[in-house]
């Protein structure tokens, strides 16, 4: 990853931001945090070497360490997938999603982003069942990911899965949902949100 790019973002951004991708060691994380990022997020490298979570938490504190999980429904239940950024390499690790969720918290994950791959990109709403199940196994902030299509989906995932935050990308990038309008809407729905 281009560290200068992180630095350029930090120069203009006045809210906390998290860098994901390409962080495989404490030294990588130190570099990214030194460029002005607030947190780092790791996914596949944590599956390769779960001790990386412990090392990062020890060095920077749990508040700095976000762990992303890509989870897919299989005939055996929800399973963690790895290398999902590359369709040729993407694979089922065989790890049970909720068991992994518990393990990473014990190791020092301070925040968890659960990307429900079945819903990712389809814009039909978050995977409320899986996220509600994850909530019961998760004592740290839980971020819902995958499936946002309309503002009501956000309200639904806060209400029904009691997540701490909802992540979306596509609907924001193509302008289908405006962030200020979404926050106004959620505030009116009784979700606590900084306007």
């Amino acid at each position, binding site marked *: 990853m281009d560290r200068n790019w992180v*630095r350029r973002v*930090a*120069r*203009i951004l*006045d*809210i*906390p931001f998290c860098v994901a991708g390409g962080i495989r060691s404490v030294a990588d994380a*130190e570099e990214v*945090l*030194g*460029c*002005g990022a*607030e947190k780092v997020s790791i996914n596949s490298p944590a599956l390769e070497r779960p001790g990386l979570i412990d090392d990062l938490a020890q060095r*920077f*504190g*749990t*508040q700095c360490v976000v762990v992303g999980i890509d989870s897919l429904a299989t005939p055996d239940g929800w399973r963690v997938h790895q290398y999902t950024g590359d369709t040729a390499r993407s694979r089922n690790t065989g790890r049970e999603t909720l068991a992994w969720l518990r393990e990473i918290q014990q190791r020092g994950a*301070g925040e968890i982003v659960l990307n429900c791959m079945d819903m990712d990109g389809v814009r039909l709403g978050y995977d409320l069942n899986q996220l509600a199940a994850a909530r019961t196994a998760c*004592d*740290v*902030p839980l971020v819902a990911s995958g499936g946002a299509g309309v503002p009501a989906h956000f309200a639904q995932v806060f209400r029904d899965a009691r997540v701490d935050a909802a992540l979306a990308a596509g609907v924001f990038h193509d302008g289908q949902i405006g962030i200020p309008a979404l926050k106004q809407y959620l505030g009116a729905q009784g979700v606590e949100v*900084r306007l």
Partner: protein
Amino acid sequence: MKNPVIVASGGANIASLQYALERLGSRPRLSADSKEIEAATHVILPGVGAAQDAMMRLDGAGLSSLIPQLSQPVLGICLGMQLLYESSEEQDARCIGVLPGRARRFEPASGRPVPHMGWNRLRALHDHPLLAGICDGDYAYFVHSYALTPSAETVAVSDYGADFSAVVSRGNFHGAQFHPERSAATGAKFLANFLGLS
């Protein structure tokens, strides 16, 4: 001419503070040099890591005895604010001691994990130039496990199970428990207000 200095107390996340001051048109310097810190118009003590480790670094650079002598505006941020007090429960650290009191650990409770991390609202207890243009209910960004209970020095509080000191001030020593450099427009106003103190 403003000549703010950020005390180089070690640690990784000084860049965001530096950039926040640059966005205000200021050119902060990062220094652990006593002479340079004494010559600054404004001194900012950031908080990085744990209390005892931070104090050891300040002691090692001769800064824990210098800071109480400073007469220009001094702002401690997050752990930097806690270091201005007498002591902290964190590693049972003795601190700089320009403000009376001891930082205590938050008790975790259901729905209130520790560290207290995220956006929380400010509530002013009285008027203060640091809070000019900042309204009750404005959000600021916090990341901390230890806090000061409200006292005579407290200017604004925030609530995490109970009120704790979010902004403090006595004489030329000021503190923010939140991170103004990461608190959007509210944080920028706060930093501009600090640079406006003389």
